[in-house]
């Protein structure tokens, strides 16, 4: 049951940043997480739909995604790398994909997010606005910090395009949120691999030593040891696939 006590729809970044500076104000990107949360703590909703952050701008080897681009738009736009489109499609079913946004996905930092893994291997940068101005940081750093700082607003995510990408995953059923997934990208002699399901957020790993430093938390879908096993197996598979492709 939504816990909204007030609703705001700012039309400027500055207005949104000002609202989000208040302690009980939260950004409402798509609503698939916040509106589904049954935590009764009151929240003032700051709906970002009025900010116009829905554009995609593509360049020679980069594309910039407005934070309010929905996963459905991401899936459908052929300027977006196939791996990211596929991940956007796999992230959520049809009725939620039209609501959930790129910015919201980054802010939540779901450890099982295959979209975040795809963004990671595409060297995504997160652009934010805050009381102290605008800035950017690698997605990996943002995830490590558990999202943007309080009062800051994700305005866009940019990523590099090109290269060859492969994704392997293991779930209970074909469309299940993977227990562990591995997304790999080969570009200009460099292989990048990101895993889901092995840490508190999706992570980039060392392809030569995929489980190094990982201490996954197990749950009923997969124990810690099993997740580490999958990390090794799936990384091996994508490395083999990328080797074949290259």
């Amino acid at each position, binding site marked *: *049951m*939504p*816990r*909204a*006590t*007030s*609703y705001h*729809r700012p039309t400027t970044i500055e207005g949104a940043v000002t609202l989000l500076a208040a302690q009980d104000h939260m950004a*409402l990107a798509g*609503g*698939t997480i916040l*509106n*589904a949360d*049954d935590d*009764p703590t009151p929240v003032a*909703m700051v*709906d970002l*739909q009025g900010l116009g952050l829905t554009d995609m701008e593509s360049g020679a080897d980069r594309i910039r995604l407005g934070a309010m681009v929905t996963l*459905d738009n991401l899936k459908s736009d052929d300027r977006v790398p196939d791996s990211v489109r596929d991940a956007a*499609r796999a992230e*959520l*079913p*049809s*009725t*939620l*994909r*039209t*609501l959930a946004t790129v910015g919201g996905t980054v802010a939540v930092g779901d450890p099982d997010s295959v979209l975040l893994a795809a963004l990671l291997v595409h060297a995504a940068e997160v652009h934010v606005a805050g009381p102290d101005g605008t800035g950017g940081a690698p997605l990996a750093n943002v995830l490590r910090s558990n999202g943007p700082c309080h009062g800051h607003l994700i305005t866009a995510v940019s990523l590099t395009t090109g290269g060859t990408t492969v994704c392997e995953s*293991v*779930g*209970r*059923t*074909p*469309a*299940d*949120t993977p*227990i562990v997934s591995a997304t790999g990208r080969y570009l200009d002699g460099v292989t990048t691999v990101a895993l889901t399901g092995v840490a508190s957020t999706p992570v980039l790993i060392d392809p030569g030593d995929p489980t190094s430093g990982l201490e996954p938390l197990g*749950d*009923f*879908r*997969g*124990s810690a040891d*099993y997740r580490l*096993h*999958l990390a090794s*197996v*799936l990384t091996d598979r994508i490395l083999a696939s990328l080797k074949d492709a290259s």
Partner: protein
Amino acid sequence: MEVSIRLNGNNQTFECEVHDTLLTLLRREGMASVRFGSTSGETGAAAILIDGKLASSDVVLAAQADEHEVTTLESLNTERGLHPLQDAFTATGAMQSGYSVGAMILGTLALLAHDPDPSEADIRDMLSGILDRETAYVKPVAAIRRAAALMRGDDVEAFEPLMLEPMTDGVNAVEVTEDDPPPNAPPAVPRVVTSPDVPEMEVVGRPEVKVDAVRLVKGNPAFTADFEMRDLLHAKVLRSPHAHARIVSIDDSAARSLPGVHAVIHHGNTARVKYASGGQSYPNPKPHDQVSFDDVVRHVGDRVAAVAAETPEIAAEACRLIEVTYEILPAVFDELETRLDGAPIIHPEEDTIDIVDREHNVVHRMHAHRGDVEVALNNADHVYEQTFRVHQVQQCPIEPHISVAWLDSDERLVVRTATQVPFHTRRMLAPLIDMEVKDIRVIKPRIGGGFGAKQEMLIEDIAAHLAIATHRPVQLELTREEEFFASRTRHPQTITYRTGVDSDGTLVAQDMTLVGNTGPYGAHGLTVQIVTGLRGLTSYNCDNKQFNCDVVYTNIPVPGAYRGYGAPQALFALESHMEDIADDLGIDPIGFRRQNWVKVGDEMNIAPHLGEGGASDEELDEYPVVESNGIEECVAQGMRAISWHRRSDPDWRAPADRPHIRRGLGFAFCMHGTAIPFLDMGGASIKLNDDGSFNLLVGATDLGTGADTVLAQIAAEVLGVRLEDIIIYSSDTDMTPFDTGAYASSTTYISGTAVQKASRVVATRLRERAAMLLGVDAPESIQLRDRSAWTPDGRSVTLEEVALDSLHINEQEQIMGTASHVSPDSPPPFAAQFVETEVDIQTGQVTVISMVMAVDCGVTINPITASGQVEGGMLQALGYAHCEEIVLDDDGKMVNPAFGPYRIYTADEMPHTEVFLVQTMEATGPFGAKAVAEIPKDGVAPALRNAIANATGTRIYDLPFTPERVHRALNNV
């Protein structure tokens, strides 16, 4: 606040609260097609179009929709007839309960707007957000293809079954080779295998459109929540956070003081009346171990208190304000541990009686046998013993439990409720609220799926208590989380088989030991475990059989009835066990079963000893005999469809280009029952109208199965009219005859026979009146067909003329008939279940590629609804086998009470699904029909398990086949 929305093409302004979801606003504005399934957007039942895109309105604030265009299904309802999209869903039978069909149609509208000829992948992707527990998405995919064609202006053919010639003579096996090509038709098309024993009929056997299709595809008010009530209050239940605790004190003063709260009830202010909640015939099996509100809670989610308030939000807040002091007691969850000395006693209270061994939590202990199993085991050439563990799952109807109760103008209590058992509910409710049965009326509207979960008097007493306390209508609707851990589930069990086999493959002894976990309350504990024994010991001929069973209390969420009712557990163990015996003996697995399975004329020698009232050992003079059995034809059709010959092809089983993949095919022999003999009873009443149409009143409960359609088809066949001439109404305890309800695969067989009998009463009188009009001396010579009564010499009078004459002109009378039926028989349907799978031997991931089920359900009354039953049943069975499980933490709290982590199959991941309906003539059934509703639940788990064994050589003994469990088995961990 105020929001402006362009709703279905009209600019409108609405007042709403900040926290209102768009779902709340739309339902308040009368958009009945937008339905509640969860608050997480996961079910898609509340999906609508926002700016032309499909979106779950339960996770959208109404405020977010301000200045947007919102489209609901009602936008298509501009005329009395159907929009082409609605017509496509109707023609293909792409709905059962129809609870979410509106969302599917809207999704189709959006999909076709972008692509007039979508691929199947795109169709399935669109459906991925709309969970359907009933159709397995097979017929919805066909409907969307048809809708696309209609919208393009293409010609479409009538959606009809594919009629197939039998491959066998019905008795003897045939060899099926790779040279036998399977029939070529879309999966949604039911394959009907004809039989010379089954005559062609006018209405029975035809793919008639569901009689409730219009109201469902148009999203018209149909379900419990759809009917508006003035001054409606909303109820919420405070539930236990502890698996086992004594309530030391409850302080409800703050809750009562909250503005908008009208009543707070708990054990301190409600009467302590013992009952058992299982919706079963009188007398309900003992022990009666529940009360509306107790001073002890026995599972996480157990009732503590309930509140009625002006809004659901106020009721929820009031629940949070109730201060409860608990004395936490030790808890036990495992069915084997609970019997040990020192385990916590779940029911020490003195007023719960008839517990067999209270100190060891054994509520029932049962034994039955034929012959001498121990002697037979000692003398057998081979003895095999295996133990299997089956887990706890939830029925997951997309419509949660919901009841609305109020006092009518005569101050009788009326309860409109989503129940499979309206008559049982009325009887069971009466003592709890200190009213007489005659002062209670229970109305069952359409139900958004039940699958056994609603064969329970689960929440009606709470709504009734609050309605009586407040003198206001009160609605209680469970949340999705409550549906998972506070409604009902399937019983976990530990099953051990000891089987004696002679060297020639003949079974000589079957010993089944069962420990069934009934959680904290008996509910259906006795009867489900009995059915496990019945189903686990009836499929095969064997002179020596034995059943020993303990039903035990624990502190898990309460198990109850779930489609299959103990059979899926039994057949997982039995058919896995039989597979392994065949493998160890080096015998063909189907051949081994064929050698032993029951055939026409065989006695079901232990069945009467495992009846509804419990196990018994008393020798009987007569034992039931199998009268019809189409299993050989089922096996042949299934083997051909699944290409069974690949099973022994090493190149297919280990594909060279995918070194970590192994493929396998699995089989399971399924045998179920049809109704409960001497117990299940249904009534029917029919009356003739002025225009020659008929009102048919039945107490039978269509919960989406198509029962109303099938029953109307039976009446139409007898009366010689079209299906649309039968107006069926079900069910209302004030209006319709008694019926035990929708369970035990009984409706077509029992209620259908009642309808057939009542129709014959009417038909007899119609012939007599027609004979009067036609001057014929022998009424029995008159035939009813084409809405007329015909003499042998070709003269006729229409039924309208008969009606007008009898109602208005000569010797006026109301032509009507009533009848009821109870059966001494329970003819078994049979089925062959096949599964194709791939196993990743490095990760343990199992991918199901194909499911084929060929079912002998007697004569199929309606091939579309029957095949839909099988498709949906297999979907649920696949979830049981593969991914679904209720997971509790160490304190007994469910850790995955949402569809994402619980995981039910979605449209975009379904394996190929194919259904064959093998016709046989069952002499005891209406027009030859047997049951079809539950047998699809029985075979998938063992067939998948056996396919995994075929693929990898690894045997697995517990469910579900999740990746880590399979990985551990593959590596002998």
